[in-house]
């Protein structure tokens, strides 16, 4: 059904009259190393290690043909080493029976086509991802239009995810599969405010249904018994983001946004991100910038601390991702255009993230690209 809808959309877009473009290829290579640690893993009821490392190479291939069409394919792999998921597989005495930290791979591919029609862009995309306990198929449509002498751009994006969860329970036993469906809608408007400022407004609504718990997440009840996390089978999320980029001069630009989030599980959150970019006197386009991000969120109605929830409670989770916390991210970024055969540009971001309760992570991400 999802595939048929996407193909129908692609056919409809191809019938629109378009504008010819020059032919162009582009390849981007992205890589990252992510390392986190904490002592509140939901895999062990909110009290165990959250140690995890991920290495993730991604290749993005873009083709702009001698037609109004352009095509993008993203292919990536995440190699994950997780101490917490390893703890699913414990014997009756609570001893880890699977040895060293668990290794897992997640592979994903997303392909999209965009057609330019006058001052409008119409696009369609398909995606697939697979990891040991999760399979996802997605399809999406997007549309945008420039108006007001290209000072305003209105956009709409619709994405649907059809996912399948393999139900490994808290003892590591496969209990079959269940489905999860997600529909996301994003409305956006970017608006030039002055020769120095541009703003972006975004409204996001997401509707989820199906199996929304994580079957191997534990909860320690008030009587000390250990059971499986239980969460409702529906969730609606809404978020509004206001971003502002302001050029104080040709050498100092502030990128910023403020985001407000709400959902019907009781979480409300606010996020502020600031990245003042300073131009360096090397090359034609070289920037260095500190990174600041501040996030605060209320707990879900279903979130409980260990040894708190009575067995009679309908829903409960010990997942701190759904808890009340403040988090901060600090880091530094660097971007330069290169006149080199090695790459057209170099992008690097190094960040450290900390959250209440001793959780912290370190991330290095970089990008290189070639076009011809």
């Amino acid at each position, binding site marked *: 059904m999802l595939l048929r809808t996407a193909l129908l959309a692609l056919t409809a877009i191809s019938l629109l009259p378009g504008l010819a473009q020059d032919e162009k290829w582009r390849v*981007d290579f*992205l890589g*990252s190393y*992510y390392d*986190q640690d904490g002592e509140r*893993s939901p*895999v062990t009821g909110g009290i165990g290690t959250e140690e*995890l490392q991920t290495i*993730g190479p991604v290749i*993005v291939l873009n083709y702009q043909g001698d037609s109004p069409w352009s095509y993008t394919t993203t292919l990536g792999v*995440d190699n994950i080493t997780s101490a917490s998921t390893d703890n699913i597989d414990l014997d009756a005495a609570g001893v880890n029976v699977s040895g060293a930290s668990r290794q897992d791979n*997640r592979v994903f591919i997303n392909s999209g086509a965009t057609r330019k029609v006058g001052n409008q862009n119409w696009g369609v995309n398909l*995606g697939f991802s697979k990891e040991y306990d999760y399979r*996802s198929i*997605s399809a999406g449509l997007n549309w945008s239009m420039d108006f*007001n002498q290209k*000072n*305003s*751009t209105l956009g709409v994006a619709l994405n649907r*995810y059809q*996912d399948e969860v393999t139900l490994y329970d808290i003892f590591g036993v496969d209990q079959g599969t269940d489905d*999860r469906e*997600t529909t*996301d809608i994003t409305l956006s408007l970017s*608006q*030039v405010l002055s*020769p*120095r400022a*541009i703003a*972006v407004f*975004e*409204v*996001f609504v*997401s509707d989820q249904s199906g199996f929304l718990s994580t079957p191997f997440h534990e909860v320690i009840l008030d009587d000390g018994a250990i059971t499986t996390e239980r969460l409702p089978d529906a969730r609606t999320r809404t*978020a509004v*983001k*206001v971003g502002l*980029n302001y*050029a104080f001069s*040709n050498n100092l*630009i502030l990128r910023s946004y403020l*985001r*407000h*989030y709400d*959902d019907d599980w009781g*979480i409300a*959150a606010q996020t502020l991100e600031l990245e003042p*970019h300073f131009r360096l006197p090397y090359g034609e386009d070289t920037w260095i*910038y500190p990174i600041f*991000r501040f*996030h605060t969120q209320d707990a879900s109605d279903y979130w409980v601390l260990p040894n708190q929830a009575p067995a009679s409670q309908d829903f409960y989770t010990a997942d701190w*991702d759904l808890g009340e916390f403040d988090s901060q991210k600090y880091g530094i*970024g660097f*971007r330069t255009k290169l006149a080199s055969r090695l790459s057209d540009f170099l*992008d690097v*971001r190094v960040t450290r993230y900390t959250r209440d309760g001793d959780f912290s992570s370190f*991330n290095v*991400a*970089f*990008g290189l690209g070639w076009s011809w």
Partner: protein
Amino acid sequence: MKPFVFILALIGTFTLSCSAVQPWQKEKLSLSPMSVNDCPVHRFERNAEVYREGAVGGNGGKSGGGCGCS
């Protein structure tokens, strides 16, 4: 719901009150950090943080499709 209504009103006010900036006035707007889209490396980095916070979405992050997290 009130914050959303307020934001939508703000958007309408901004859009209607802005006079068009002419192409020859857009030198600063064309500098790379002024792009309204985050660079691919930034989006890539965000992939990790959105799954460590239950408040996912509305920021280029996705709410389905698995994550490789645990």
